[in-house]
């Protein structure tokens, strides 16, 4: 079975040429997604060139600055970039979630205004969904947007607004009708510099603060920032969540998480040692390590299978909701095993006596506990599988 048609192969030459001319060799292996600061030098150059070319979002329409490539061409581009160690400098929530959703539901004016800065990686977006009383039951949200004629007046509190402390804009679900649960929600874009927006980072058990609480107090939002119809935000919001799950499970997220760091068998040989037959000396741990590694392999094979099956089909597939639970389990198991292997060294928090990897593993372990909570908890995923895929009904 040939993977690509002739056209895409023809595109390979174009991609290779452009990259040869535009990719700064010093950027080989550098992932700009991991830094918060604005890039400088070669990094800035690379980002600017990719932004201008639109290849950071290769399949988005050229009309709004995107690459305009076919999925097959986009894969070729990805292969060519991987070949020379080039990482995509354009990313974030704007690319992964908001952009695809706005392209589908936004007005032409909204797309013209918001998509190009995302394509160029100029503006950061954050997600204003969860609230203290609305976690898995997202539709219980209470942040209120009152119609004041030419603007909405927004009051309320969001939590888990990822990266809000660095964000320029926030896409929000707000309540515009208190009398209807799902049909009283609207999808609103809020400029984070508007007066009345306050952001407080939340410290997590891993010690870091990637999320914030965001408070809205009498925040005025122009009417033009409403996406889709009034009280029609739930559909849009759910669609965006599909894109989120897709990116959490299918792409670099989960798979990357457990592929990073020293492989477990090497860790085990270093910290645990081997017996007379060359086997890892702790037999109980060894059995569980083998089982875990086989599960991880099964997950990777499933990612590959899903990718092969969905070729040419851009919309998220049913397999996505399986991936999230399966992938987060593999990631969490890996982290648990890593710290178990390293014994007390694997629980180092700070100060002398610990290697950098040891300090990272403990944070990776703790931070990874969120993977079964965010983006649709493990329980919500199981509900989705049971109801949408398996057709099991709720109590009638």
């Amino acid at each position, binding site marked *: *079975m040939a993977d690509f048609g002739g056209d895409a192969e023809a595109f390979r030459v174009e991609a290779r040429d452009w990259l040869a001319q535009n990719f700064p060799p010093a950027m080989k292996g550098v992932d700009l997604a991991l830094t918060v600061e604005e890039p400088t030098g070669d990094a800035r150059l690379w980002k600017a060139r990719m932004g201008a070319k639109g290849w950071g979002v290769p399949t988005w329409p050229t009309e709004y600055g995107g690459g305009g490539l076919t999925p097959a061409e986009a894969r070729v581009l990805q292969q060519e970039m991987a070949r020379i160690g080039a990482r995509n400098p354009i990313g974030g929530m704007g690319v992964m979630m908001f952009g695809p959703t706005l392209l589908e539901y936004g007005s032409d004016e909204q797309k013209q205004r918001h998509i190009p800065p995302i394509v160029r990686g100029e503006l950061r977006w954050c997600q204003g969904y969860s609230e203290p009383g609305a976690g898995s039951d997202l539709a219980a949200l209470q942040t209120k947007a009152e119609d004041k004629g030419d603007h909405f007046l927004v009051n309320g509190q969001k939590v888990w607004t990822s990266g809000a402390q660095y964000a320029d804009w926030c896409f929000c679900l707000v309540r515009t009708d208190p009398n209807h649960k799902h049909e009283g929600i609207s999808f609103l874009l809020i400029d984070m510099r508007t007066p009345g927006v306050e952001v407080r980072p939340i410290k997590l058990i891993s010690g870091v603060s990637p999320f914030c609480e965001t408070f809205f107090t009498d925040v005025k939002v122009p009417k033009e920032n409403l996406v889709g119809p009034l009280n029609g935000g739930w559909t849009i919001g759910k669609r965006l969540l599909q894109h989120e799950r897709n990116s959490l499970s299918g792409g670099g997220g989960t798979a990357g998480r457990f592929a990073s760091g020293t492989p477990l*068998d090497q860790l*085990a040989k270093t910290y645990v040692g081997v017996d007379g037959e060359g*086997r*890892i000396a702790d037999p109980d741990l*060894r*059995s569980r*390590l*083998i*089982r875990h*590694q*086989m*599960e991880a*392999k*099964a*997950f990777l*094979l*499933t990612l*590959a*299978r899903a990718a*092969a*099956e969905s*070729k040419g089909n851009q919309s998220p597939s049913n*397999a996505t909701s*399986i991936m999230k*639970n*399966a992938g987060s389990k593999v990631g969490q198991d890996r982290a648990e095993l890593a710290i178990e292997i390293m014994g007390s060294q694997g629980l180092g928090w700070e100060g002398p006596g610990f290697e950098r990897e040891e300090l990272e593993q403990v944070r990776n372990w703790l931070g990874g506990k969120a993977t079964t909570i965010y983006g649709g908890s493990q*329980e919500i*995923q*199981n*509900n989705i*599988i*049971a*109801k949408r*895929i*398996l*057709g*099991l*009904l*709720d*109590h*009638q």
Partner: protein
Amino acid sequence: MAVLTEEQSMLRDSARDWVREKAPVTAFRKLRDGAAPLGYDPAAFAEMAAMGWAGVVIPEAYGGSDFGYLSLGLVLEEMGRTLAASPLIASSLAAASALVLGGTDAQKQAWLPRIAAGEAVATLAVDEGARHDPLQTGLSAAPAGGGFSLTGSKTFVLEGMAADLFIVAARTSGARGEADGITLFLVPADARGVTREKRTLADARGYAAVSFDGVDVGAKAVLGAVDQGYPLLERVLDRARAGLAAEMLGMAVQAFETTLDYLKTRVQFGQTIGSFQALQHRAAKMFTELELTRSCVEAALSAIDAESPDTPQAVALAKAAAGDTLHLVSREMVQMHGGIGMTDAHDAGLYLKRARALETTFGSTAWHRDRWGRMAGY
């Protein structure tokens, strides 16, 4: 489901249709209740062979379609769904692979066309004890008059009562536990000194214990090289194991679907039991495991087709994943059906019994996990 060629899709669809019509679970139940002497219905196998299923991995030159292991796996998966009994794995997959991979042209000519046509049934005779362990081969093959004399016994030989040909792992040198010194022999079932006795396992399929009491075979009965049969045997066994995994996947899928149907129809406390969230989440768990297992099984079959050097790892993973998943699903099938699932009249027990029989054949889940671990350096 793997991305299939048009031919593969057609093969799968025709297997599915035929199995549903001609070999539903009731057909197997009839065989069991009648204590069918061979453990399968020869007429049904003749139909399968007529459709070409017995020659899927056999080259066209020897009467097959050379359609590959993934293709045969599709058929086996469909057979697994309804517990359809046949010598496909023992003869058309395992024994055929042994001849294709290790046979001389004469050996191939002698047996492959008949195997492909379903006219002859061949099988591997490997294990000598309760637990699969080919290195423990002890059946002796002593030089005798330019050939060999075989003495010893084999047990739990698949389709052993039906077989026309045994492919026997014997020891020409070395000791139990050693790879060197194992040699494969082609021994017709009607050779003087061969006797067999039926073994009735919980899954009611066709097993036999086979005795070799000074069975004389010529030098041309050697399959592959003398003393160096073990690597060939492992390659053959891996093909059989991948086929078993495909059958197990099909069983697990059907056991799950049958259970899912019951969850949707059985009412307790005024609700379908499938509306109880604890059962919903367990169903979701099973579905997740089934999806993961499918990836492993298809990857193993594809690795064989691609002659990948990673085939042993891929097969160990597939057999272990299928073992774990089928174990989970067949137990849940009984549990979720409640009392009715405990009755012999319901299908759940048939799946449960067959699940364990397949699990133990050619290496248990634990055995394959440890094997995978050793290959991965653990």
